[in-house]
């Protein structure tokens, strides 16, 4: 053992925190469950499922057919109740806005809850599997994803990137932005993007993330977007009408995460059973009360 040991230890023992901490550790251990074996857990539903059966009526565009032997999961996420009236984050022509010449060229909408007037569908909701189906590996798409900025707004507002698929950060604005993320697993990114960056700066996520990563620009406080990073293709974001489609799932039982930026989980474990050569369609309504501040 180290020779410094004896003469040094007494000094620092005194400064320390009480032994209570250690006792707590012991106690907490006892309540750690010792292997609740294989019991299937059914999560309580947080949303109202209006129709549980396979229907494709809501999807206005004809759903595509799944590849042979696989199934598709489609659906619509709607707001159950009146939509909130959200003011634009920057009003067109507001000269007091920061960098108004560029940022107030147009309204910058508040995209924290985007609801389609006719379908009541909520846009930009992520529907995805946390992990790839057991034992499966999927190739990284060759094409990079493009993440652009225009009028001091990120485009798109939500993006699904695959692990190791480059995301090219571009800008059409004639001022600098910075693209700043704080992911849980991946290295954080906080990079200045020069005006009119047309080639794109490479942002690479080399690990999957369980939840969408928030992206901000510190130079323009209102700018936000979300990146979801998956190591498989089974994730989708709802379109402007609130619809989503996840293609070619191997048949089986799944639990999807449904996540929306203002409320977080819409559902942690949305159970879906996929059958070969079929489309499974779900309607998911989120009560408006959930969005009340």
């Amino acid at each position: 053992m180290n020779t410094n040991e004896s003469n040094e230890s007494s000094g620092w023992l005194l400064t320390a925190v009480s032994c209570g901490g250690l006792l707590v550790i012991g106690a907490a251990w006892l309540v750690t469950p010792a292997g609740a074996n294989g019991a299937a857990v059914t999560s309580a539903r947080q949303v109202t499922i209006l129709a549980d059966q396979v229907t494709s009526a809501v999807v206005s565009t004809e759903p595509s057919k799944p590849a042979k032997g696989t199934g598709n999961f489609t659906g619509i996420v709607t707001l159950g109740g009146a939509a909130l009236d959200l003011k634009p984050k920057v009003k067109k022509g507001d000269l007091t806005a920061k960098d108004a010449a560029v940022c107030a060229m147009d309204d910058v909408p508040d995209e924290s809850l985007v609801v389609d007037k006719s379908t009541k569908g909520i846009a930009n909701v992520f529907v995805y599997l946390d992990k790839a189906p057991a034992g499966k590996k999927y190739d990284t798409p060759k094409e990079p994803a493009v993440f652009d900025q225009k009028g001091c707004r990120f485009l798109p507002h939500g993006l699904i990137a695959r692990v190791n698929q480059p995301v090219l950060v571009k800008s059409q604005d004639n001022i600098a932005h910075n693209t700043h993320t704080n992911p849980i697993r991946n290295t954080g990114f906080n990079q200045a993007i020069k005006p009119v960056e047309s080639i794109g700066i490479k942002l690479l996520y080399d690990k999957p993330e369980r939840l969408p990563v928030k992206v901000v620009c510190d130079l323009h406080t209102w700018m936000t977007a979300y990146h979801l990073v998956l190591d498989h293709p089974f994730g989708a974001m709802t379109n402007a009408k609130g619809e989503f489609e996840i293609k070619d799932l191997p048949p089986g039982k799944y639990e999807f995460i449904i996540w929306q930026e203002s409320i977080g989980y819409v559902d942690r474990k949305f159970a879906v059973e996929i059958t070969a050569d079929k489309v499974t369609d779900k309607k998911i309504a989120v009560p408006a009360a959930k969005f009340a501040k």
Partner: protein
Amino acid sequence: MRIRPALVTLAAVVLTAVGCGQAPEAAFVLHQKTSELSDASRGAVEKELLNKFGTPHQLVAWQKFPFDYGASGENLVTGRNLYMRHCLHCHGVSGDGNGPTARFLNPQPRDYRLGKFKFTSTKSGLKPRRDDLREIVKQGIPGTTMPSFVLLPESELNAIVEYVRWLSARGEYEQKLVATLVGEGGGEKDISRRVNKDGESREAILKGLADFIAKDFVEEAAIAAGDVADSWVAADADENLILPSIARAGLDAKTGLPTDESLHKGRELYVSKKAKCMDCHGPGGLGDGVLTEQFWKIPGTTPEQEYAEPGLHDDWGNVQKPRNLTKGQYRGGRRPVDLFRRVYAGIKGTQMPAFGGTALTDEEIWHLVNYVLMLPHQKTSPAAKHPEKPSVASTGG
């Protein structure tokens, strides 16, 4: 890139206990976020930490946590002893920046547990090299209470650095475990909300959590350990060291001082649309840019919450003023290359972004460095009054 096999051999056996003798004993404290977990979730985190890192008296070396802490297990014990003597009263037993004297200090001592360090020579987003940590401990951080330990022998400095890395890895690991459990719905507040607001059954929630802890948690913990280890290994990789691609630009061949032209370019860049240093540091470099008056959202909050105070914040949640560049005091070192690296990679854990390789060329960064280094010597700052008219009246000195 995992490094396990090669390095595991370096790891000593579990280091045996240090005589404990008199109470009260030093103990690692839980992160605030850990204490906000449900009982079983918190227990799982505590168990993992104890298993992989032990206690301050009984350090568990890396054989259970896959990365190199340098030399032998004894080095870590030496590092700990030195840390307890020199650093603990500010940085705390757990490296949480919350030692007994911390509450009197501003800025607060660094909380190592985020795994982020501000003043590094590595590329954007990356952890510090060993050299960076050693340099900081050696030089101290001017303008803060972080003292210089220049008188310690190199071997002791090295041992302390290893212990800081170890504490940081422990803390970051804890936070990652907590994030995993919070993601699974293990936060006590979250559970109460689901039970009271959404009408879910508490039993069902706890059962789901117990099931997760029993089945998947071990694997998630291994992934988290690997991520932390990877990031420390990456920091020491040579390709991640920032080396300017050209020697300091804009110097007069005869005097060796920055030329007027370079200072002009620096000034123009400083106020330019493409660098926007001014938005934070202010037109005259006083640290009073427009962004210091804004209110900011707290990162990682869903739904979004705002900080109570206006102004830029660092990732520890402290208000962080952009440096007043007219004072000539630089926390991360005052050599031109230090400032080059600050601008190239940004200041990690803060809102100051990385400019290198994206917005600015290496040459442009040098002009900015020249300009910044001149600012404290500019007697009156005409630029402060006329930001739109870049003017560098004197060449400093």
